[in-house]
């Protein structure tokens, strides 16, 4: 009897997919491709690496680009290209974990606040307001000081810092959705809050969730890389793009910028891809709501 | 092309026309291609005369008003001629265009969207006077308070200091009307000024507009989808469908003696409070925009109850008849029978 939005007629669904592709545009497709490549590198990069990414060979320290090693060697004589490929895993895994955790937490809080409204909403909103006072990096530094440096401490700190941003956006959307007449109709029919949220509100704000998540992965990548750059995140010698900049920064004034620049470029490329895709998805999400 | 002069339908002459629209065709870029929203629209307004412009959504009535006020979106292609007081409106620019705008005032449909929410009412009302007429602020405020009184807002001084969100929709619309009158215009374009308001406020607003028009001797183009509303305060009514004028008639005779099947259907579709019917009359199909309507034939043919083969072969011209105009080739023979027939 009740048809959630995802159960639309097949023609409507096809129409939606076409509309999404149109909203994303060619640039969005390119971004998606870049992201997919990065994910493949994250999953299987180590296998594709032409050389051993971990074995130092100080005699090759900072040697420039050569025939078989297009990107040269880093400060410890390791092949940069291999290290980039191997580093993709921790560089991508961290942000994805951060986004998963903050989206899960933020969405849950937003839904509860939007559904219950009243006192629950005020309490949750006030707690979130307080969390807003902590910039992500600060929280990560604090966590590193207390728990010791490492990827997980940083990731958890960042997710905590991101949660209020997610919750705020989703709470607004959920509130708007909740005030639509069909929700009241369902309530009158006796559907429970959880069921309505699950089958109706969530699918309708899903485009917004996806768009938000995509953009946030970009931010998380930047923040995590910054923390690793500060020496408080992923610890060397684990390969990681942020760490590579940290390790190879000394080479720049000495005239060997390639390793640090290569790692920086990887970060920028993937972050741009996430940002562009996220932005387009946002436009699509808003168009769908209208 | 019109076969009859648009002046037909006037029962008295008031002098040379103030506003003259001839063969206005407007195309707007929609999704990359130019689509027609107005087709060969012609009308005339004498000074002090009120003309109602009636049609459903997509008929082009708002677009007509915007074309007259040079408010079309960028990229619009305009053919035809609009003259105001003998001047070609389309050729105006710069200071002349601004002077023109002072003489033609527009009242919009949704007051809340059309008033800047972060500026005070006083600022909104007096801005045109202070900028274009170089009036000192106090005098402008004084005038604003006077006009506010005329639209029924008594504590004008306090209202001028308030922000738009502090006023109700009805009040804001009165402010909009008052603001339009401040610059002393000669023509008022009212684009569905009461649609966004509740019925009681609607009748108050219409009464205000009517009184003010007579007091100031304004010409008015009153745009609405409500045939009866237009007939109530306008001397003549023009009916639009699919971007074209399909009928022009004096309002008194429009309801009882319509000259076009669409007008008759519109009038018949309105529920009569004095009667009980088994089923509400609706016009089959849906209203079309100019670019959706078939071009080689009468635009209303697909929905018309009196359609014949001849209607489908050529687009009908405007025919003069009984002091009015009609874009129906069967107008003569259908006269008198249109009200009885219906959906």
């Amino acid at each position: 009897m009740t048809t959630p939005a995802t159960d639309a007629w097949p023609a409507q669904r096809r129409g939606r997919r076409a509309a999404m592709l149109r909203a994303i545009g060619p640039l969005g497709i390119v971004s998606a491709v870049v992201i997919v490549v990065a994910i493949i590198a994250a999953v299987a990069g180590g296998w594709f690496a032409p050389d051993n990414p971990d074995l130092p060979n100080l005699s090759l320290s900072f040697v420039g680009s050569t025939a078989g090693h297009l990107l040269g060697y880093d400060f410890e004589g390791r092949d940069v290209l291999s290290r980039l490929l191997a580093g993709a895993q921790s560089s991508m895994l961290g942000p994805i974990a951060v986004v998963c955790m903050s989206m899960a937490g933020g969405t849950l809080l937003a839904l509860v606040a939007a559904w219950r409204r009243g006192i629950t909403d005020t309490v949750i909103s006030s707690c979130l307001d307080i969390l807003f006072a902590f910039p992500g990096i600060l929280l990560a530094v604090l966590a590193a000081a207390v728990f010791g440096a490492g990827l997980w401490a940083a990731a958890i700190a960042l997710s905590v810092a991101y949660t209020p941003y997610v919750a705020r956006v989703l709470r607004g959307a959920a509130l708007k959705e909740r005030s639509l007449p069909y929700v009241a109709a369902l309530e009158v029919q006796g559907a429970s809050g959880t069921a309505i949220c699950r089958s109706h509100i969530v699918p309708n704000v899903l485009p917004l969730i996806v768009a938000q998540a995509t953009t946030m992965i970009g931010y998380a990548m930047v923040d995590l890389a910054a923390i690793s750059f500060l020496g408080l995140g992923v610890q060397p010698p684990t390969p990681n793009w942020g760490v590579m900049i940290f390790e190879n920064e000394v080479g720049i004034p000495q005239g060997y910028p390639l390793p640090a620049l290569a790692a920086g470029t990887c970060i920028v490329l993937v972050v741009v891809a996430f940002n562009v895709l996220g932005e387009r998805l946002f436009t699509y999400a808003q168009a769908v709501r209208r | 092309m019109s076969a009859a002069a648009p002046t037909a339908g006037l029962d008295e002459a008031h002098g040379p026309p103030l506003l003259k629209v001839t063969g206005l065709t407007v195309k707007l870029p929609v999704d990359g291609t130019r689509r027609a929203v107005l087709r060969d629209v012609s009308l005339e307004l004498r000074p002090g005369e009120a003309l109602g412009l009636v049609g459903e959504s997509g008929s082009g009535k708002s677009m007509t008003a915007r074309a007259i006020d040079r408010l079309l979106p960028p990229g619009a292609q305009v053919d035809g001629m609009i003259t105001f007081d003998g001047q070609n409106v389309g050729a105006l620019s710069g200071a002349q265009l601004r002077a023109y705008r002072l003489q033609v005032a527009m009242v919009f449909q949704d007051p809340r969207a059309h008033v800047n929410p972060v500026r005070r009412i006083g600022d909104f009302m007096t801005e045109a006077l202070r900028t274009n007429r170089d009036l000192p602020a106090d005098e402008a405020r004084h005038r604003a308070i006077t006009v506010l009184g005329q639209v029924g807002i008594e504590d004008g001084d306090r209202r001028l200091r308030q922000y738009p969100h502090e006023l109700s929709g009805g009040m804001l619309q009165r402010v909009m009307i008052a603001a339009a009158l401040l610059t002393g215009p000669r023509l008022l374009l009212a684009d569905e000024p009461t649609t966004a308001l509740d019925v009681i406020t609607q009748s108050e607003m219409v009464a205000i507009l009517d009184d003010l028009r007579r007091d100031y001797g304004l010409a008015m183009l009153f745009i609405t989808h409500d045939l009866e509303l237009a007939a109530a305060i306008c001397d003549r009514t023009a009916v639009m469908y699919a971007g074209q004028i399909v009928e022009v008639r004096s309002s008194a005779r429009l309801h009882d003696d319509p000259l076009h099947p669409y007008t008759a259907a519109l009038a018949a579709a309105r529920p009569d409070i004095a009667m009980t019917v088994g089923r509400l009359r609706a016009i089959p199909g849906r209203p079309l925009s100019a670019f959706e309507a078939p071009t080689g034939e009468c635009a209303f043919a697909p929905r018309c109850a009196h359609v014949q083969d001849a209607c489908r072969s050529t687009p009908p011209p405007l025919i003069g008849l009984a002091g009015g105009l009609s874009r129906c080739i069967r107008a003569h023979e259908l006269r008198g029978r249109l009200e009885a027939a219906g959906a």
Partner: protein
Amino acid sequence: MLIRFLLRRLVTLAASLLIASFVIFAALYLAPGSPLAALSGGRTLPPASIRVLEARYHLNDSFPVQYWDWLRGALHGDLGVSIVLRENVSALIASRIWTTAGLVLYAAILIVLLGIGLGIVAGLRPGLLDTSTLVLTAVAAAIPAFVAAIMLILAFAVQLRWFPVLGNGTGFLDNVRHFTLPAVALAVSSLAIVARVTRAAVREEQGRDHVQTAISRGIPVRRVILRHVLRNAAIPVTTIAGVTVASLIALAAVVEVAFSLNGLGAYLVASAQDKDLAVVQGISLVLVAAFVVVNLIVDLLYAVLDPRVAAGGRAR
């Protein structure tokens, strides 16, 4: 109206600050091991030092009392002692705070002037300038401060030798020279975001109905743009500019490390690595307070710009 709104924001932000201070303080207890171990950073201390620490931090008192003591001390300017340098934390902070403040201010000026300026120009003039702005900002927005830092170091300091690479410099003008590259690195990505949002806001305002009304009343285009388009666009622009400047406070740490500037951020990171907890707490408190103050100023500006807010809405 405005006053009441401000007071409400002030109270909320004060509460945030209070709870934040609590979290910062409680970090001492979250650390694995005893607070003593956390304070000493895992170093072994002679018994005399241990007694000093116990007395100074009231480690034998109950938790709420300790918190209250710490808070009271903080309000009076006493933030504890650095284990590493054995000096008062407040003095250590004071000597470094102007570096960070100067850097953030320099970057903020760049963001506000260049970012908003670029956004306005691009928003008002569709065409080549607009498209190129869009492309540039899309890329720039994704360049994290530390990547921008190394790129700038490479380009200007090493290759072109226009600007010095590292350090603070001496004297005001020299300081400005030394701070230019770091400020630019800090500002790049935020500048791009502000420019994009400004452009979008200006575009959106241009299409609004009330702008049509103003034009229909014969008001000159220039005036319409100033008093209606830009004035209204200022609302979302202030929000994003404020949020971005606030975020600079934490981001400055990264740039300070990259350029070897002697600021609070760099010191915070070093202390975190050294596990000098008292310093970490002290600096965190200062940074969070600064963040809260900036947000308060943004809220104030927002309420001034948008009269609907003071009437009962929330700033965000």
